[in-house]
């Protein structure tokens, strides 16, 4: 039994999500190899080698992996698959894009969004927007898994010294081509790794008003999140969406402002340690999960809050 983890990175730095996956993999009790597939990404491999508990870092440094195209990454993982009993990735948009492709080619199931490891073949995963937790057992020879990162405390980033082993690239697929990306630039902490999140919903009423949350986020050193309604209305970019079909977050403090608390939104934030809700409707379902609820008009409460902090 050996586990292979697909590392998440941007060719410059290793993303924290990888550390959560290492923590999940350690529960399998098998040696762990980490695959860094990218282009001019040696620094990532070096960071990966420092994670305690990682046996080997496999480095595929090739133009084919400059962008995480599913076709190319899946081909690489398939070439490496023999010899591994478990293949893991974080349940990020990259992991979700690539791993089912690997599983189908191996003729095995993929186990999505694992948030508990019971044994080497039995896992807990959320269904129905996290309103039920299913314990599933896989009879397949290889377990292909995406990991819900918020469910596992990250492994330490420093202290190890794994060997870095180059692996050959697979031919790039001519069927898919990267054209460009619009990556949201922000000085703020990454949503999925933030200690505090300030999230706004439809109640913010406009993109201009949504900026009000920035002042609050500044005071709290927080990341900014949004509900689907706020994203659909163009108040916030898509990568801020928290929820069943957006990002799953579990910060120490989540402040929901002008968000009603639909099932789909709660699915993404109800594992936060402390939840604050500010909403003018005292019946809003968000109050059922909030530790501290303030029934108030956000246009008064938010500026006041900024002043008090």
């Amino acid at each position, binding site marked *: 039994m050996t586990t292979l983890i697909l590392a998440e990175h941007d060719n410059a730095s290793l993303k924290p999500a990888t550390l959560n996956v290492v923590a999940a993999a350690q529960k399998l009790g098998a040696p762990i190899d980490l695959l860094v597939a990218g282009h001019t990404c040696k620094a990532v491999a070096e960071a990966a080698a420092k994670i305690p508990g990682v046996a080997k870092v496999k480095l595929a440094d090739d133009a084919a992996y400059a*962008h995480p195209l599913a076709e190319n990454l899946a081909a690489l993982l398939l070439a490496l698959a023999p010899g591994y009993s478990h293949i893991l990735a974080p349940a990020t948009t990259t992991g979700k894009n690539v791993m089912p*492709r690997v599983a*189908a080619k191996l003729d095995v199931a*993929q186990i*999505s969004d694992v948030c508990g490891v019971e044994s080497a073949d039995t896992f807990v995963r959320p269904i129905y927007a996290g309103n039920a937790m299913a*314990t599933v057992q896989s009879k397949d020879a290889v377990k292909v898994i995406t990991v819900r990162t918020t469910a596992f405390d990250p492994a330490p980033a420093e202290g190890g010294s794994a060997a870095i082993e180059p692996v050959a690239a697979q031919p790039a697929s001519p069927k898919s*081509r990267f054209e460009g990306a619009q990556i*949201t630039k922000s000085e703020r902490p990454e949503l999925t790794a933030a200690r505090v999140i300030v999230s706004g919903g439809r109640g913010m009423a406009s993109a201009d008003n949504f900026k009000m949350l920035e002042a609050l986020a500044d005071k709290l050193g927080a990341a900014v999140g949004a509900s689907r309604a706020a994203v659909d209305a163009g108040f916030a970019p898509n990568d801020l969406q928290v929820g069943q079909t957006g990002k799953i977050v579990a910060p120490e403090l989540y402040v929901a402002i002008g968000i009603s608390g639909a099932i789909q939104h709660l699915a993404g934030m109800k594992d936060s340690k402390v939840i604050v809700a500010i909403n003018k409707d005292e019946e809003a379902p968000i109050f059922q999960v909030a530790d501290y609820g303030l029934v108030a008009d956000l246009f008064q409460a938010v500026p006041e809050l900024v002043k008090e902090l």
Partner: protein
Amino acid sequence: MKVLVAVKRVVDYNVKIRVKSDNTGVETANVKMSMNPFDEIGVEEAVRLKEAGKATEIVAVSMGPQACQETIRTALAMGADRGILVLTDAELQPLAVAKILKVLCDKEQPGLVILGKQAIDDDCNQTGQMLAALLDWPQATFASKLELGVSDARVTREIDGGLETITVTLPAVLTTDLRLNEPRYASLPNIMKAKKKPIDTVDPASLGVDVAPRLSTLKVNEPAKRQAGVKVATVADLVAKLKTEAKVI
């Protein structure tokens, strides 16, 4: 170009589901069922392609019990041309669904297959990617914009960091994200017309697909419940509580 869309029948997104008391699953008897919302977006996109003269025929496929026929009818009322019902009472997991779709694609030869990015019941987010792998086609998942050409498609995708644009050659598999479009409601005349559109019924065995589940569900539990919180009267109260009680700021 022929477009194939997959439409799954799921518990309606407004229903607050309940875990069965024997922990074998989720209560689905007597709850409202609907087309998976991401699949509505898929059907809408296909219909828009047809309206733009880019698609010639739309085939809607659903798999599961007889009631899935209603889901296909909804797709036909929105503008799909015909349906295929893959009839089975067996549990279908994403790999099995992908294998069935592969057989149907071999037969129908669509230029584009559209699926939802995620079924809101199993929350798997796998089937489209698996289908693309089985067909050896490229995939454009989590799409928020599609520009369909003759031999390729330029697709904007919602990714964790923002947006990404890729070009895939056709035939290809596309999975929908929320911002791709806003699905229409079927009009009454179109609902009537849909009743006359053809639906073929096949079963997995006749397609030569083994649908045996690969994952067995040992139990289904309710998630841990949050303790009820308190209401605070003022912003100052809130700040005080966060500082001294919750100690998070």
